[in-house]
């Protein structure tokens, strides 16, 4: 596999932060690979919706966010959560339905949240996080402290009315809301072009009076730079914006299907050649931010941590049945 090269004359962030971004991308990749295993071994209930291949988008965007900024995520949410600082241990425990999970096992794979980190939840309703993100942006504007709200969603969600209705409101009320569309080319098993009229989301966003940028979603620095511009403007009260990141999921819509019936081998190979991880690695190596040995060490360290999270979760109890009736009301 030849990784496509991205050359950047100057790096936009200090080495420490770049390393942190790299670590997060690696963590997402490894987390998804391990969840794949966990699912295949029957160690988790429900379905697993993985985002390996898409790591650059959440990491590039979240690198521009502060701890008190918020995000909302999707059914394919592991990457967003890790990128915003979520810890793999309570994530894995949640995926495995344990009481030690982020949501005490009540939310599950599609509903991980860590509100203390500004992660207002993954969401099983496609487009379901968008209204919530608009509301968080409303609160942020009211607070007046420059906080922003990011809604992550897929190419499928752009055809839900909630996008349109909140876009109109967000522009009118100048809310600090960034719509981030992770276009992985497919809405389940159908190519997005078969489902999307016109010039796509960018044109729609502009028609609503919003700035919109479209970037190579597998180039973490390109994502970072575009997000940096839009988030910065939103912080300064310039209102909402849309960012479209073109990317690809390597696996199936969920682990139960191989992802090949509706996508050609060539298409998959083409995207694997643009894998965000080696591309970022090459930049970091080139700029001597990291050495090959560092990479290997980091890989081992993350792998060990994620693997340990499985073992720990396996040993953790399921929630007690009496919890079923708790947390309905505050």
């Amino acid at each position: 596999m030849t990784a496509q090269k991205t050359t950047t004359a100057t790096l936009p962030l200090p080495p420490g932060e770049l390393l942190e971004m790299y670590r997060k991308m690696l963590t997402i990749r490894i987390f998804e690979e391990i969840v794949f295993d966990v699912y295949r071994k029957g160690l988790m209930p429900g379905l697993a919706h993985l985002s390996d291949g898409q790591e650059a988008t959440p990491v590039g965007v979240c690198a521009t966010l502060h701890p008190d900024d918020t995000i909302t995520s999707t059914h394919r949410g592991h990457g967003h959560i890790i990128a915003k600082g979520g810890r793999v241990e309570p994530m894995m425990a949640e995926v495995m339905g344990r009481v030690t999970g982020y949501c005490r096992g009540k939310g599950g794979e599609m509903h991980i949240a860590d509100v203390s980190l500004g992660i207002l939840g993954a969401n099983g309703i496609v487009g379901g996080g968008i209204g919530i993100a608009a509301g968080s942006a409303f609160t942020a504007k009211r607070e007046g402290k420059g906080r922003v709200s990011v809604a992550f969603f897929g190419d499928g969600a752009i055809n839900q009315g909630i996008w349109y209705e909140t876009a109109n409101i967000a522009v009118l009320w100048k809310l600090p809301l960034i719509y981030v569309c992770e276009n992985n080319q497919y809405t389940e098993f159908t190519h997005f072009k078969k489902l999307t009229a016109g010039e796509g989301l960018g044109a729609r966003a502009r028609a609503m009076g919003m700035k919109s940028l479209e970037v190579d979603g597998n180039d973490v620095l390109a994502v970072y730079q575009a997000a940096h511009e839009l988030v910065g403007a939103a912080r300064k009260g310039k209102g909402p914006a849309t960012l479209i990141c073109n990317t690809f999921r390597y696996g199936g819509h969920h682990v139960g299907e191989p992802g090949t019936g509706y996508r050609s081998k060539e298409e998959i190979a083409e995207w694997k050649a643009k894998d965000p991880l080696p591309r970022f690695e090459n930049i970091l190596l080139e700029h001597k931010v990291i050495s090959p040995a560092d990479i290997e060490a980091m890989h081992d360290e993350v792998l060990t941590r994620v693997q340990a999270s499985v073992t720990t979760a396996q040993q953790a109890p399921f929630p007690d049945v009496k919890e079923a009736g708790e947390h309905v009301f505050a």
Partner: protein
Amino acid sequence: MSSRELTFAQAIREALDEELARDERIFVLGEDVGVWGGVFRCTEGLFQKYGPERIIDAPLSEEGYVGLAVGAAMTGMHPVAELMFGDFITLVMDQIVNQAAKMRYMTGGQVEVPITIRATMGGGRSSGGQHSQSWHAWMAHVPGLKVVVPSTPYDAKGLLKTALREPNPVVFFEDKVMYAKVKGPVPEEEYTIPFGKADIKRQGTDVSLIAISRMIHPALAAAEKLAAEGISAEVVDPRTLTPLDEETLIQSVVKTGGAVIIDEGYNHFGTTAELAATIAYGAFDYLDAPIERLGAMDVPIPFSPPLEFATIPNEEAILAAVHRVLDGRRR
């Protein structure tokens, strides 16, 4: 306590006003709630008093602004989102049911979602099939929502103030026929009314009339008529459907031995079903006759007044039902 007479709409407005003054996290949004003061005058003057940041005219995008309200509630605000006609709740079911109602549970208790949805209900104004419906039973079928159905200005004010101090999603139904037409005493002093406490609007011993929202008024009128016939009817107002004060309902029927349940929501699979089933279970050994259910006729709501009135329970229908209960007594 000193008291004045307020209309139902004025009582709502006063509750909003007092709570807006008390808690700056509270804001109101909806269609024409701001400058215009609301089509039913429930927010009159609030825009002038609290400004455009807190009394907000939203675009005609119910799903959008209710969705936004859910997110605002999750991040520390306390929105009051208005649905001008409760019929439009169909447009925001996802935001209420799949988001607001379950966010706390699904996060294992991480968030509170203090959103209040104010929605009208009720027919009788010849507003046609899409502006007259009463969907409180739907909401009461959803875990995670509190559901309020006040019948008097006093209750409306006290319950709305409670809603605005609740850390949970509340759907607050206001029968629009009462806004201008129902007046009642409301103390000058501040008060709140707890959720889950039924109110016995009239004491009685022979039969229980359990009525929801505006239906309390024909029930009280029927009780008055029955008194003249020597029949003592108790009139019970659950006031909230979730939580439901099952105990008070059951005890009333334990005492009287018979019940008529009156609601303007549809009869089939509606509020009358839940109340009848609950009472039939809890007062099984005390029931002298089958419980009579008087919900709205199960048809889309017709426009023409003679038809529309035929679909809504009224005093006559209540009296007839009471006589069925009393005549049908098995002991």
